[in-house]
């Protein structure tokens, strides 16, 4: 393998890894906040992609411009999912964990079915975007602009999230609620409100990822599934609830996937990622940055 090909694999893995991280961070955030795994996370991503597609069609603006709007829409969706579904699942008297899993899983199936009914199972594609199909070539290394842009958005989102968590009252309220749900009520923090905002924030982050993906990926009611699986692995690898863990794990997953495809036949390329995941589960079950 030439150095050039090696650098190309490294770069592709890194860019894809940053996008995986951006997809996973919302999932991690929600889990960290309230110990609920959102099984509809992939469907949030799918709806974000459809939202981008629809908004491009209606407004004729570029996905890059529409990205904040998509994130805002997903924020509303995330908060609504908490207020309309998860809040009730959390009231279960027995076997709360299972009830939560089935509630979000049911939401996922509902959203998939609704998307297929409303948007048809056709594969959609956002045409004629500023970045779509454009590639930056640096000494024989090809860096697709949509992925480069996605990587920048991902890093910016992680930076912003860090500031939000450490510098604002809302961030402190999130952190406090995650530490002790009972105690925050005593100091006047409305637990439900924080949870709803947390779900909104988690969904908004996946909204950003959806808007980026819509530029270079096909859009389909089931598109979330393959990314969601990687997101779960990423979150488990990085440590449930850890924002920094999601970033590091996303990059690791991207790189391992890219290099496995070079070493093993590409049909087996997920093996590397899952082998790594298993190793982490055995050696460090809380994940790389987990605090459990």
């Amino acid at each position, binding site marked *: 393998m030439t150095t050039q*090909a090696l650098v*190309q*694999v490294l770069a*592709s893995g890194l860019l*894809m890894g940053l996008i995986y991280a951006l997809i996973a961070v919302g999932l991690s955030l929600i889990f960290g906040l309230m110990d609920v795994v959102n099984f509809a996370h992939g469907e949030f991503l799918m709806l974000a992609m459809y939202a981008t597609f629809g908004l491009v069609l209606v407004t004729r603006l570029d996905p890059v411009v529409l990205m904040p709007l998509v994130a805002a829409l997903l924020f509303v969706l995330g908060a609504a999912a908490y207020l309309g579904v998860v809040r009730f699942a959390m009231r279960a008297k027995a076997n709360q964990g299972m009830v939560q899993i089935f509630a979000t899983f049911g939401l996922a199936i509902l959203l*998939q*079915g609704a998307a*297929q009914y409303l948007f*048809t*199972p*056709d*594969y*959609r*594609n956002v045409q004629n975007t500023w970045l779509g*199909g454009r*590639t930056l*070539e640096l000494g024989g290394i*090809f860096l*697709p602009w*949509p*992925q480069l842009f996605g990587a920048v958005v991902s890093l910016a989102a992680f930076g912003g999230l860090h500031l939000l968590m450490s510098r604002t009252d809302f961030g402190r309220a999130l952190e406090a609620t995650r530490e002790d749900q009972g105690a925050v009520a005593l100091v006047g923090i409305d637990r439900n409100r924080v949870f709803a905002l947390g779900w909104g924030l988690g969904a908004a982050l996946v909204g950003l990822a959806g808007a980026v993906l819509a530029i*270079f*990926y*096909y859009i*389909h*009611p*089931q598109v979330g*599934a*393959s*990314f969601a699986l*990687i997101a779960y692995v990423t979150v488990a690898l990085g440590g449930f609830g850890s924002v920094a863990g999601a970033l590091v794990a996303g990059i690791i997953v991207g790189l391992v*996937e*890219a290099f496995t*495809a*070079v070493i093993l*036949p*590409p*049909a*087996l*390329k*997920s093996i590397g990622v899952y082998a790594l995941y298993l190793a982490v589960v055995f050696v460090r079950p809380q994940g790389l940055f987990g605090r459990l």
Partner: protein
Amino acid sequence: MIRRRELLVGAGALSLASLRGAPARAAAPEVVVGVLYAMSGASAQVGVDARHAIETALDLINNDHDLDLPGAKGVGLAGMGGAKIRLVFADHQADPQKGRAEAERLITQDKVAALVGCYQSAVSATVSATAERYGVPFVCADSSSPSLHRKGLKYFFRPAAHDEMFSTAMFDFLDAQRKRGQTIDSVALFFEDTIYGVDSSTVQRKLAAERGYKLVADVKYKSNSPSLTAEVQQLKTANADVLLPTSYTTDAILLTKTMAELGYKPKSIIAQAAGFSEKVTYDAVGDKLQGLISRGSFSLDLAAKRPMVATVNAMYKARAGRDLNDNSSRQFMAMIVLADALDRAGSTDGQKIRAALAATDIPGNRTVMPWTKVAFGPDGQNVHADPVLLQWIGDKFITVFPESAAVAPAKWPMNA
């Protein structure tokens, strides 16, 4: 819950009984046919189009139409006293195990006389085995894996070509290009990891070796992958004279996009249809596929010679909102071939339908395909289903091979 269901079933049975009891409402006899496609999941779009194609055929069979297709003239099946066909659709979600379970349900509960399906070869494999066990004929419309008709099944029938026939046509075409003085030395295989891709690659690997084409890349990839960057990197490094992809729709779109992103323009592409026959692929990335050649069973330009093709296409388009393609045309024909056999069988008995299917002899000009005729060998394969090669030029497919069916010479290489 069970009680409520029992109650419902009971009520249903009662109302059925009362219907049967009323002679004034006695319905015309009907034949039930089970249709298995992925109606949800990543390949739902093909299933939804298949439904439109098979319902178009049903319209022709059950109602009177002035077309020279078997079953089109007259109402219902004449051989069964004008019985109409009723379809029961089942969703196998592209999962071989769900396909098996659904086939069993259709046979035991819905009492279907025959089955039609299933697009994904992996699903057709389990469905054909189930149909065999119950002695119910299975007309395999559009799965092209050659291993399907080599299992010694008695109830398996495939009117369309399989990938050996398709791939042979591809290499015949390459040989013909060589004779014209084109330099074609190397080929690259790119195929998905279920039996459709694996069987296709086995045939292509063998043909490449036999006919002296160097295999410079042999890439088996995981279907529905989030990224194909590493795979495309290998194809790009190999830079074969011809790229031979075997992919369903999602991967076909992603492959094309990734090739463009990594600055790889294959010199030529000859695709094993499937995803590369679907309009949605060309809606998404058609500009990057100008000059792509795909094998096919069908071409709309046949309508110039056979106006019936345009009529059937218009009927399908009214339902589906798109033209017939390689997949939907085969689904349509499967239903027509089955109806023709049901008509001659004059019975819903599995053995009699099997015997009628085995005796099928429909001349090519009574189909919408470029086939010589429909007549099955002992293995249930129609050996007269001549494949064609189509080239994507502008915004449509044009037949370029074999010469007897071609309407224009092929543009070669695709990207000079």
